[in-house]
């Protein structure tokens, strides 16, 4: 694939990782991903971000269609996480840059990742500018969106916002721009990325968007480090609006039921709760943890109003996939949910109570006590599960209208 020109003399020179399924070890990426990198040819040649180790030579080959590697003057490191820095030592060696610009936290992180004492690192902060000749680079630190070192770079002359992981999506495609792909598939990947990576930093995402709006930046291109880029006024407005909804964790009349089960009793409870929720007009997602992993679940949880977690009791506790799910969900700090816990058991029955304690600890409102039942559900017990769904479904319907 050749470099792709975004606007005059501004190129995409990243890499498409069609094979990626395991994204950094904590989430799955069913549709692959890309590591986007950008090159600007001006009086000074600037290269933004890098790619994951193992993809450096492909990136170098791509940018060599525009400039010789040794013609690169400046490297800009907007984020030190290794999907955007793994190939950096190779790039530094091949381009021999005059300067490497990064944020204060970026410098700290670079030194903790690489043997970079002899790299020409220059620290830039929010408000710092660097001239390339005709163009200016304006830096905007976006600390904790999603690492302390994250930074965005804005090029006012072209209206290009290089946004690092913000606005990213894991999606390997031959197309590079949002207007060339199916919108709802794109939205799904944007949501999935946010829900699994950016969610705990929602308030910071909201503040960053406000900052961009109050600074009155004329953003004409949004170029994230993963997935498709946005180049039409409609698409730029669309992605910013969608991020506002994501950051506000705007809820739908929707409930997620996530569970694990050995002999299907807990599963039958989940289905009974779901029927009560559906009676109240809610959209329901039933997610058996043997079919869905924790990142699939978070993609549904972020905009759900209610989250039910169920487990059979196993060796005096919850099943391990449920413990995995709760640990993962707690770290992502979903806000404003109603919670519910349920589970079948044989003698001691700890699981549902333990789950309820976790959900309470996450700040969920728990209007109904955990529903537990001995071994295989009776018709009456399933009716009690349905009643739980109805009660919480009604609360959600009243809240969201």
């Amino acid at each position, binding site marked *: 694939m050749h470099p792709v020109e975004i606007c005059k003399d501004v190129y995409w020179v990243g890499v498409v990782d069609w094979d990626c399924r395991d994204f950094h070890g904590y989430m799955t990426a069913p549709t692959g991903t890309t590591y986007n990198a950008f090159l600007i040819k001006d009086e000074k040649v600037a290269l933004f971000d890098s790619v994951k180790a193992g993809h450096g030579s492909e990136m170098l080959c791509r940018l060599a269609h525009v400039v010789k590697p040794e013609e690169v003057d400046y490297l800009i490191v907007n984020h030190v996480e290794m999907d955007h820095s793994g190939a950096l030592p190779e790039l530094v060696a091949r381009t021999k840059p005059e300067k490497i610009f990064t944020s204060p*936290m970026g410098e700290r992180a670079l030194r903790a990742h690489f043997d970079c004492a002899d790299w020409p690192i220059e620290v830039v902060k929010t408000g710092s500018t660097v001239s390339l000749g005709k163009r200016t680079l304006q830096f905007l*630190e976006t*600390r*904790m969106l999603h690492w*302390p070192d994250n930074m965005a770079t804005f090029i006012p002359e072209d209206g290009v916002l290089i946004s690092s992981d913000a606005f990213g999506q894991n999606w390997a495609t031959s197309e590079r721009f949002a207007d060339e792909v199916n919108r709802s598939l794109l939205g799904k990947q944007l949501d999935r990325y946010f829900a699994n990576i950016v969610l705990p*930093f929602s*308030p*910071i995402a909201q503040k960053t968007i406000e900052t961009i709006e109050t600074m009155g930046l004329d953003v004409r291109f949004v170029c994230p480090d993963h997935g498709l880029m946005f180049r039409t006024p409609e698409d730029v407005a669309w992605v910013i609006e969608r991020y506002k909804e994501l950051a506000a964790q705007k809820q739908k009349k929707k409930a997620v039921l996530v569970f694990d089960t050995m002999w299907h009793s807990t599963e039958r409870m989940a289905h009974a709760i779901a029927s009560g929720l559906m009676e109240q007009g809610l959209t329901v997602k039933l997610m058996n943890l043997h079919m869905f992993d924790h990142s699939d679940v978070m993609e549904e949880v972020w905009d759900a109003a209610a989250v039910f977690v169920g487990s059979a009791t196993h060796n005096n506790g919850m099943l391990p996939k449920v413990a995995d799910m709760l640990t993962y969900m707690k770290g992502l700090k979903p806000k404003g949910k109603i919670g519910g816990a349920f589970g079948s058991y044989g003698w001691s029955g700890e699981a549902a109570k333990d789950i309820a304690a976790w959900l309470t600890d996450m700040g969920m409102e728990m209007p109904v006590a955990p529903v537990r039942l001995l071994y295989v559900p009776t018709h009456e017990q399933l009716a009690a599960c349905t009643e739980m769904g109805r009660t919480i479904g009604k609360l959600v319907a009243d809240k969201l209208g």
Partner: protein
Amino acid sequence: MDKYECSICGYVYDPAAGDPDNNVAPGTKFEDVAEDWVCPVCGAPKSEFNKV
């Protein structure tokens, strides 16, 4: 009462507001916040905070 800023993420501890979500009552001086309290945004320890 002085405000303190987290050097990692930029969160500002305002003693007037405290951090009620994490059991720090409004009106608590930074010096009096528990030593095991961490930045509510990024989890950095108290030692990463500087007076602003």
